[in-house]
C-alpha cells in the first residue's frame, strides 16, 4: 500500500475572517441548535475577551456536538448515523459587549471515555486561523475527572474548559483569547 503518498494535494491556507464577517456568515437562527422551546433546551452564553481583557465585538463562535443521546447524524460515525436529523451546529456572532448566545441541548456521553463536550471554533479579526476549544459541563464532575483531555491538564487550565451554571437552564462559558486566565485552545 505505497500509494498513500501518491499525488496528495496541498492544502489551502487559512486567512482571517476580518471585521466584516457578518456580511457572509450571519444567519438569523444560527444560534439555535434547537428551538428555544425544545424539551431540554439550554442556553450557553459568554463573553469573548482579548489580551487586555477588552471585549471582542466582531467575533463569531461556532459549536459542534452530539445529540442528547451522544449520537451524531453523520455517516462517518463508526457507530452509524443516528438518522435523527439533529444537525448539531450553532453559530453566533459576538455583540457590542463581546457576548455570544447559543441555544442547544446538553450532549450525551459518547461512550468512549470522554465526558460530554461541545467542540468550539472562535473566529475574529486578528485571528489568522480559527482557535478551537471545548465546552465541558459542571454537573459531570466524575466524567470530567477521567476525561482524556481534561485530566491531562493542570487543574487551573482545565477549569477554563468547564462552563459555569448561572441558571436552571443556562450556562456561562467565557473565552479569553490571551493573557490572564487564557482559555485552553486545541490543535486539531
Amino acid at each position, binding site marked *: 500500500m505505497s500509494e498513500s503518498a501518491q499525488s496528495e494535494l496541498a492544502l489551502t491556507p487559512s486567512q482571517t475572517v476580518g471585521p466584516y464577517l457578518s456580511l457572509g456568515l450571519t444567519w438569523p437562527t444560527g444560534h439555535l441548535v434547537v428551538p428555544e422551546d425544545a424539551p431540554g433546551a439550554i442556553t450557553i452564553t459568554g463573553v469573548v475577551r482579548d489580551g487586555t481583557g477588552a471585549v471582542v465585538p466582531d467575533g463569531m463562535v461556532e459549536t459542534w456536538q452530539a445529540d442528547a443521546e451522544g449520537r451524531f447524524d453523520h455517516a462517518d460515525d463508526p457507530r452509524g448515523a443516528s438518522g435523527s436529523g439533529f444537525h448539531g451546529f450553532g453559530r453566533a456572532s459576538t455583540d457590542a459587549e463581546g457576548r455570544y448566545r447559543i441555544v442547544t441541548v446538553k450532549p450525551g456521553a459518547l461512550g468512549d471515555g470522554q465526558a460530554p463536550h461541545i467542540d468550539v471554533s472562535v473566529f475574529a479579526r486578528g485571528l489568522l486561523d480559527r482557535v478551537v476549544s471545548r465546552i465541558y459541563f459542571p454537573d459531570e464532575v466524575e466524567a470530567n475527572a477521567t476525561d482524556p483531555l481534561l485530566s491531562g491538564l493542570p487543574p487551573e487550565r482545565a477549569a477554563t474548559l468547564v462552563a459555569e451554571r448561572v441558571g436552571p437552564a443556562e450556562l456561562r462559558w467565557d473565552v479569553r483569547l490571551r493573557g490572564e486566565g487564557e482559555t485552553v485552545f*486545541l490543535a486539531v
Partner: protein
Amino acid sequence: MTPSKPATIHQPSSAEIAGYLRPPPGTHPPLDSPPYKSTGLRAPSQAPVVLRHRLTEITGPLLTGEIGPNDHDLTRQHAAPPIGERIIVSGRVLDSDGRGIPDTLVEVWQANACGRYAHSVDTYDAPLDPNFSGGGRVVTDSAGNYSFTTIKPGPYPWGNHHNAWRPSHIHFSVFGRSFTQRLVTQMYFPGDPLFPYDPIFNSVPDEKARQRMISSFDMENSVSDWALAYRFDIVLRGREQTPFEEPHE
C-alpha cells in the same frame, strides 16, 4: 442510504478511529504574526494542546439548507445590477486525497467594486453601491463543484500601517464533512501588485502555500459578451490511512 440501527451500538475505542492528517508546517499562518497588528492582542500566548481526533472531530456539520434563489449570484440581489466588472468564480472543494466534497456549504463575502464593504464598521471614503450587499452562498454538487457570479472587488486601505492596502480578495468559508476540515480563507486575483505589501497574505509562511490562495484566470468558463471567469479550488485535509497511535491513554 441511512444505515439501519445496529441492535447494540458498537463503541469504538479512539484507537480504532482514523483521524485527519495534520497540516504541514508553513501551510497555515501562525496566529501570532506581528506585521498584522491585530494579532498582538488576540493570538493566544500559550501553545495549543494537541487533541487526538475522536468522534466529535471526525464528524461535523453537514449544512445544505436555506439557500435563497439569488444567493449564488451577487449581481442579482437588488433591483439593478451592481457597478463593476462582472465575474464568474468557480472551482472544487476537495480533500487532499483529491476527492471532491459533495453537498457542502460554501459562503462568500466581499467588498464592492470600489473596495467598500456594505458594513457599518467600514468607513473608507469610497461609494457604497445600493445594488451590492456582498454576501453569497452555494452548495457544492455531487463532484464538489461550486460556482457563483459576482463583481470583482476593489482593493481598499486599512489601518494596519501607513499606506496599507488590502489586495482585492473574496472571503470564503467552507465546512467539508468534519469538524477538523473547517476552513475560512481568502481568494486573491492573479498578478495583484499589492501582494508583496500585504501582511495578511504574507502571514502564510510557505511561498507555495501563498500561491494556492490566488485564483487563476479561467478563459474556458468565461461567457462571451457577459463575464470573465476565475477558478479557485479549495483543498481540505484528508483522512489518515490508519488510526493514529498514541502511547498514553
